[in-house]
């Protein structure tokens, strides 16, 4: 993969811009959107710079995807997850950046504060209220930035060498993705994140009587509790799948019968009632 370097804007400048942009109308923001800015800079090495034409194509493509959800008017029905998953796949396929580069907030600030501020406002438009600053700026490694969070979903949840590598990104809902992606203990380990997603989807399909969001929330909560004394990083994929499957099984039992099952491996080290799952 030929690495492309994207424009960056300084964090302080991004803060100023975000504060200015977050209350403006989508129409006004469309006129302020640009493919460059006097304050942009690039990483000195590591790849070739993104051309203006490339940046314009990205902006045009994302606005087209937004238009499918009603942009610049208010959202049509069920647009959030469809827009997000399509943009996640598009960004991850198109940008050609590494995690090291994608961890730079300055890149995602360029996307939100310079290239596509109108789409940010449209996606996170709160009636008569300003859009949250974090949707322009980002949080750790950009997981709350409007576009950074989508690229990271593609990066963490893609399953390479399969016909539909971004299947998980399309199948999980916003709430389910947030449970995973905003928990570095879960999303930092790609094998663990995909194992949880796959086991969750399989269990949700097999148990339509269980509310899907409840299933994901309770499962991730159980697995996060284990992080205090279990090293998922030290396990191989099949071993890790086994632990995740047990957590899912316990969640299903809890949601269906009000108490967790004692699976073979859950009859665990947990003799302290405070740690009981």
């Amino acid at each position, binding site marked *: 993969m030929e690495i492309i370097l994207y424009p960056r804007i300084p964090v302080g400048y991004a803060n100023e811009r975000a504060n200015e942009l977050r209350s403006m109308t989508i129409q006004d923001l469309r006129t302020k959107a640009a493919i460059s800015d006097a304050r942009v800079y690039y990483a000195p090495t590591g790849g070739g710079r993104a051309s203006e034409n490339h940046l314009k194509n990205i902006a045009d493509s994302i606005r087209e995807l937004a238009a499918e959800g009603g942009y610049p008017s208010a959202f049509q029905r069920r647009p959030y997850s469809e827009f997000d998953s399509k943009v996640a796949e598009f960004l991850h396929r198109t940008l050609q950046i590494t995690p090291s580069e994608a961890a730079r907030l300055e890149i995602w600030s360029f996307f939100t504060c310079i290239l596509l501020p109108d789409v940010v406002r449209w996606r996170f438009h709160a009636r008569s209220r300003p859009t949250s600053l974090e949707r322009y700026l980002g949080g750790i490694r950009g997981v709350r930035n409007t576009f950074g969070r989508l690229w990271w979903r593609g990066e963490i949840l893609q399953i390479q060498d399969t016909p539909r590598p971004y299947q998980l990104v399309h199948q999980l809902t916003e709430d389910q993705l947030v449970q995973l992606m905003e928990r570095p203990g879960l999303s930092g380990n790609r094998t663990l994140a995909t194992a949880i997603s796959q086991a969750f989807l399989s269990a949700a399909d097999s148990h339509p009587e269980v509310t899907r969001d409840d299933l994901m929330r309770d499962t991730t909560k159980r697995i996060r509790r284990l992080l205090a004394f279990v090293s998922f990083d030290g396990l191989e994929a099949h071993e890790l799948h086994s*632990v995740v499957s047990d957590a899912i099984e316990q969640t299903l039992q809890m949601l269906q019968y009000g108490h967790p099952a004692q699976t073979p491996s859950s009859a665990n080290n947990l003799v302290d009632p405070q740690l009981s799952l």
Partner: protein
Amino acid sequence: MSLVVPALPFLRPESDAIRVVEANIHCRGAAPKGWLDSLDTWDPSTAVDISIKTEINPRQVFWDCGFDSHAVVRMVIVWSSSDTSLRGRGESRDFNLSNSSDEIETLSLSCVLEGSQLAGTLTVGVQLVLVDAGPSQFSLTPKLPGTLLWSDTRATRLEGAETRFPVEITDFAKLGWLPEGASWHVSWNTDDLHSMALGSVILQINESNLRIVEAVTQAQPVDEARLITEVIEFDVARSLIEGALSNEDFVNSPNQYEEGTLGETLRRLINSLFTGDSMRALAIRLREYPSLFDSELQARQLLFREGQ
């Protein structure tokens, strides 16, 4: 969320059952020099080599944890990167009673990390984890696969010029506030050392000076480009150090700055160059003998002396 567990409710090995005897971390192509607090020449295109040698008494581990002959434990290298939040594992070796001797074994594990996955601080650990507890009936014996039985963790800051400050190539004539003929400018605020280092300092390069632009955009500058980048690096360091030492607040309390801030970065930079000198002493030297201070900085940064 991190759960604080004051006392783990399962058996673990006694402290003398495992120990790290040697740890190395270095950029690909560099010679191992033990464990380093920072990798100054790292950039995202550079792989990082890690090797950790441990001594383990497997039979003592099994005895201490109450495992029977069916249990399997694993020694494994794990890593995590602070800014990408990514984590993973390196080499590992599984132990059970049938493949373990009564004696202390020396175990060398290694790991190669692609630079593209990393940013910020790299934390590396060697862990002993449970793979399979077997049919043990003892209630305090660990049973859940992945249970962390022992670990030794250390961290390295991935430095590299690119991680310290961004570079902006721009036309000084169009900016209007920098001299058109200048080649570079270090843009930062000496009064705001509590701000995060990234984004607070920008090296601006005048795009009309093609020799400078070519030098700073090369991945591995050589010959003239190397000399140019060395001069610029020296000038940036000089500007930052002299700015910090002219800031009374910094000189009075250099330890007040949180990790990742410009103040903390400059304190570490100055301490690494002037080991043993107090900030106050350095500030006085800079004020009383500024040209001598510049020369001393040249000497400590080994300007133009790489490879000699």
